């Protein structure tokens, strides 16, 4: 029995429960935060190595056999996502040591952090479509509470939009699950994929596929369901924003990757054509929204949306190279995006604002932070030799090979506009002089209690450089996951192998 597939879910649950138990002690909660997420990261790396070796790792929870019980399944895509969750979870926990404040800790920041991570990992690893819904709800509950920590008016406003739209998406998701169950009589994803390949009425399947597209599209903030994201992501604590930006929408993207390769692969010309349009529109609206804003975290929030478009484009093209690109893009994006949000937290401590026009002069006082910002920012815009260049390169090349020239053109223009946005932040926050009339309240952030904010920023920046300079193993992992995604029979065989004979 291979334990590695369940530990990334069990460990955050246990760490969360223990940190509720020690709610009186700030020290115990912080220690559990770092140790718990550290242990989760370690086990997720173990899971990745095991999956790399065996292809698929399956565990039937409670020894109830598939397709009746709930299975946890790890394939290469899931394992990669779990490792990324571990990295971002650990980075956030370390950052929170100096970035979150006693008040949030008192209101249960750490237990909620662990619960959110458990929800994310559960959603990645589950092989049961209804269980996926349950993990989505776990994430929603935890993220809602994290979003309103602090209780400011803007946070409440953002949270209401966030919750309303996400509940709507959950309802559509549930409806889709009901229809799927009615059609196939099973909730196990491998079993659904297996049974649907024999169903003749592909029209009905396509209708259900579109319901899933809407449900996960809301979660992933894809066009035209993206508007909840820029309304809410700039309101909570920076550590929470970084966690959300890195992980939450990507769970929606992951779910799209999962169902549109494993389950809905009958009418690819139709369903994936729609995905391609969604991808192009998502890229474009996101980047245009970013160009119009002058608040640090709002700009970054809109860029999440446009980047989601690239990932969906990888899925929509549905060629081996495009899927490699999509997975590579997810890996690159999660690390870069979380890092940019974490940096916005450091500049906030320095200047006391997120508004670009009241900031400035940071490069002069703190050149190190300027460099640390440029690495993820230029990577996001896709400049070589950073990670974003290769991610974009693979996707665009896949687009040219698939002869989808118009979407390639959109992707290139969006890349250019991304560069414009990043340069805008650079010029306003780091390069220009401190604006006159604005009080220069630069606080020392390079020593003392703020030192923990730097550790994850440096760690993630180094990873960005490493993916760019030494991308071969990352590419290999993405290639293996793409190969598994395009051949769902491997997944079905791994889950139902014994049951089908």
């Amino acid at each position, binding site marked *: 029995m291979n334990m590695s597939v*369940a530990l990334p879910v*069990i460990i955050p649950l246990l760490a969360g*429960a223990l940190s*509720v*138990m020690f709610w009186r002690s700030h020290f115990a909660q912080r220690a559990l935060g770092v140790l718990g997420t550290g242990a989760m990261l370690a086990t997720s790396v173990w899971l990745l190595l095991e999956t790399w070796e065996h292809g698929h790792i399956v*565990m039937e929870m409670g*020894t109830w056999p598939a397709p009746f019980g709930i299975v946890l399944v790890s394939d290469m895509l899931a394992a990669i996502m779990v490792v990324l969750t571990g990295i971002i979870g650990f980075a956030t926990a370390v950052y929170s040591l100096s970035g979150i404040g006693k008040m949030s800790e008192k209101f249960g920041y750490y237990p909620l952090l662990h619960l959110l991570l458990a929800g994310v990992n559960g959603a990645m690893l589950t092989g049961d479509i209804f269980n996926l819904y349950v993990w989505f709800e776990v994430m929603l509950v935890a993220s809602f509470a994290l979003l309103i920590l602090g209780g400011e008016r803007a946070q409440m406003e953002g949270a209401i939009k966030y919750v309303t739209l996400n509940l709507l998406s959950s309802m559509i998701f549930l409806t889709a699950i009901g229809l799927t169950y009615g059609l196939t009589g099973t909730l196990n994803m491998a079993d659904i994929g297996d049974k649907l390949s024999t169903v003749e009425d592909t029209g009905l399947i396509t209708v259900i596929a579109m319901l899933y597209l809407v449900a996960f599209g809301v979660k992933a903030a894809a066009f035209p369901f993206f508007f909840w994201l820029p309304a809410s992501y700039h309101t909570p604590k920076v550590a929470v924003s970084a966690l959300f930006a890195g992980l939450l929408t990507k769970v929606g993207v992951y779910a799209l990757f999962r169902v549109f390769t494993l389950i809905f692969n009958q009418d690819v010309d139709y369903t994936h054509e729609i995905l391609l349009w969604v991808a192009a529109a998502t890229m474009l609206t996101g980047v245009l929204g970013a160009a119009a804003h002058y608040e640090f975290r709002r700009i970054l929030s809109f860029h999440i949306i446009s980047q989601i478009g690239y990932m969906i484009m990888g899925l929509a093209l549905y060629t081996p190279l495009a899927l490699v690109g999509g997975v590579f893009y997810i890996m690159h994006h999660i690390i870069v995006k979380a890092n940019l949000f974490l940096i916005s937290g450091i500049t906030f401590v320095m200047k006391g604002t997120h508004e670009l026009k009241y900031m400035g002069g940071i490069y002069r006082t703190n050149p190190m932070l300027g460099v640390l910002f440029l690495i993820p920012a230029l990577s996001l815009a896709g400049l070589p030799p950073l990670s974003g260049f290769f991610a974009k390169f693979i996707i665009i090349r896949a687009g040219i090979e698939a002869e989808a020239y118009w979407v390639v053109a959109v992707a290139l223009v969006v890349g250019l506009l991304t560069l414009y946005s990043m340069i805008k932040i650079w010029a306003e926050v780091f390069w220009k002089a401190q604006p006159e009339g604005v009080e220069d309240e630069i606080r020392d952030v390079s020593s003392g209690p703020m030192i923990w904010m730097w550790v994850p920023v440096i760690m993630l920046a180094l990873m960005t450089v490493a993916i760019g300079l030494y991308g071969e193993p990352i590419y290999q992992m993405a290639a293996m996951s793409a190969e598994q995604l395009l051949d769902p029979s491997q997944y079905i065989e791994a889950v139902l192998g014994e049951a089908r004979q």
Partner: protein
Amino acid sequence: MSMHSLILRTAGHFLLPLLLLFSVFLLLRGHDEPGGGFIGGLVAAAAIVLYLFSMDIRSARKVLRVDPRDLLGAGMVLAVVSALPAAFLGQAFFTAQWWEFTVPVFGEIKLSTVLIFDIGVYLVVIGSVLTIMLNLAEAED
């Protein structure tokens, strides 16, 4: 918050132990028959809330003895821990483990990790309901 009703206060005193006993009964009955940790926890929480209505917050906290947040934490830990024994025996997480004892007078008793999980749920429900109720009651004062 207190309603100053003699009837409610007298009844509250008698109902509290009865309801708590009933909640434990529901908890233990739950394995094969209707009942279980969730409904049992709700009944127990309702018992304390009834006491809160008939008396006041201070005496409700006193009769509870522990902070509801501690119950919440302990329950969560129990629920997660119940998943672990199977792993040490080389089975999948959450696989139920059963232990049977023969105790004089009571006869055969079956204990299991399922029961530990249910007790965990019981405590989590009491803890979360009472955390909410006591905070609301305090906010109203």
